[in-house]
């Protein structure tokens, strides 16, 4: 029991490494802030292409893209983009490689969420909007898409939380986010406590968001 505390809940080591982990936390936060809007925008574009296009080949291509990146483990994708990129002549810096892999992976999940949202808006809404002379694009922008987002807001938030957790994978390619910082600290102090501290920091960041998400889902179920 005592060794457990020594090894995992070592307050001295916590104090020692906390500033270092804080830097890692910052990286986690800005990396998420970079990837979430990009993934959401790409996902919305894919979903719009999927639900609005009359072209069958385009729809098939979009579905293929979505299913491909849903089937592909993000860690493998990251490694391929990171290590394989230079072979293709793609000189990506670390952040760009990580961001590219994450956006490719996550846009497919966002596309599915937006697709469900768009298909859930009543057909009469588009008809009414068009009957007043709005073009398709205007009707989508002012009437359909806002309602689609409202309907699937909990899923959008849930996906955003997943992205924050996903950033921990970047530790494998030595991106200095929270988990990497903890692992580096661990090898410096020869003690796994930093990893435990990082776990607590993830909880502090994400638990409130998860609770908020639960409330959003509850509100939606009652509507």
């Amino acid at each position, binding site marked *: 029991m005592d060794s457990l505390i020594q090894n995992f809940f070592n307050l001295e080591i916590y104090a020692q490494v906390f500033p270092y982990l804080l830097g890692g936390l910052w990286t986690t936060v800005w990396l998420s802030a970079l990837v979430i809007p990009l993934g959401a925008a790409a996902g919305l574009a894919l979903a719009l292409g999927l639900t609005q296009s009359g072209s069958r080949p385009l729809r098939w291509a979009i579905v293929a893209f979505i299913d491909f990146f849903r089937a592909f483990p993000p860690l493998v994708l990251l490694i391929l983009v990171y290590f394989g990129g230079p*072979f293709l002549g793609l000189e990506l810096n670390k952040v760009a490689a990580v961001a590219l892999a994450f956006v490719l992976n996550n846009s497919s999940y966002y596309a599915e969420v937006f697709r469900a949202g768009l298909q859930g808006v009543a057909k009469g809404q588009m008809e009414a909007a068009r009957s007043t002379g709005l073009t398709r694009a205007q009707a989508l922008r002012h009437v359909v898409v806002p309602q689609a987002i409202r309907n699937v807001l909990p899923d959008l938030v849930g996906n955003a939380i997943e992205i924050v957790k996903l950033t921990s994978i970047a530790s494998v390619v030595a991106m200095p986010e929270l988990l990497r910082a903890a692992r580096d600290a661990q090898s410096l102090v020869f003690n796994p406590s930093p990893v435990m501290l990082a776990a607590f920091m993830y909880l502090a960041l994400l638990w409130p968001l998860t609770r908020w998400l639960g409330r959003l889902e509850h509100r939606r179920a009652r509507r």
Partner: protein
Amino acid sequence: MTAGDSGFLFTFFNPAVAKQYAPDIAAGMLVTVGVGLAVVVTGTLLGLALAVARALGRRALAWPIVAFADIMRSLPPLVVLIVLYFGLPSLGLPLSAFAVTWLSLTLVLAAYAEESIWAGIRAVPDGQLEAARSTGMRWWQAMRWVVLPQALSRAVPPLTNRIISITKNTALGSVVALNEILNNAQGASSHAGNPTPLMMAAFAYLVVFLPLVVFSRWLEQHWQRR
């Protein structure tokens, strides 16, 4: 074809390297599928058990379950894996890489499964349980024959998506040296000084998971009819 083109193919799709390391990749696939299946079975069953326990309505039981679900859904799976990997030996439980990977992903899947199934149980009208009990059924029977079938039916679409995304995390096992696809491919790549095994790994993952994704899409469209 310029020398550059054949260089690309030679680098990423080198037949000689592929042939040499195909057995390693195949062995990795067995491990990936093995861990995946084990996680799906135990994770779903554990989630189901937790949801039913929560349905009993006892505060003392419900509170730890909710806390467990919240924590496991708020932590990145890789963090769970690493904490268990370093932590369990301290508790006198040195588990193999396979077991640690299986355990972490089971706990994570159980948390999501519990939430999905619980939401399904909540969505079943109270009248269902009342009606069943009024015919003399005991609580367990009413759950088993009336409430759970309806709850599970609702939970299937979100659950299949979750199962797929969590079992893809078997790739994380490579971080703790589990000999699944990615790990074997990385070893082979550095051995051969050639990234072809990584492309093989990508292909192997697609072979394993793409059918699941297509199946879940089909399921989502056809499940409503039931």
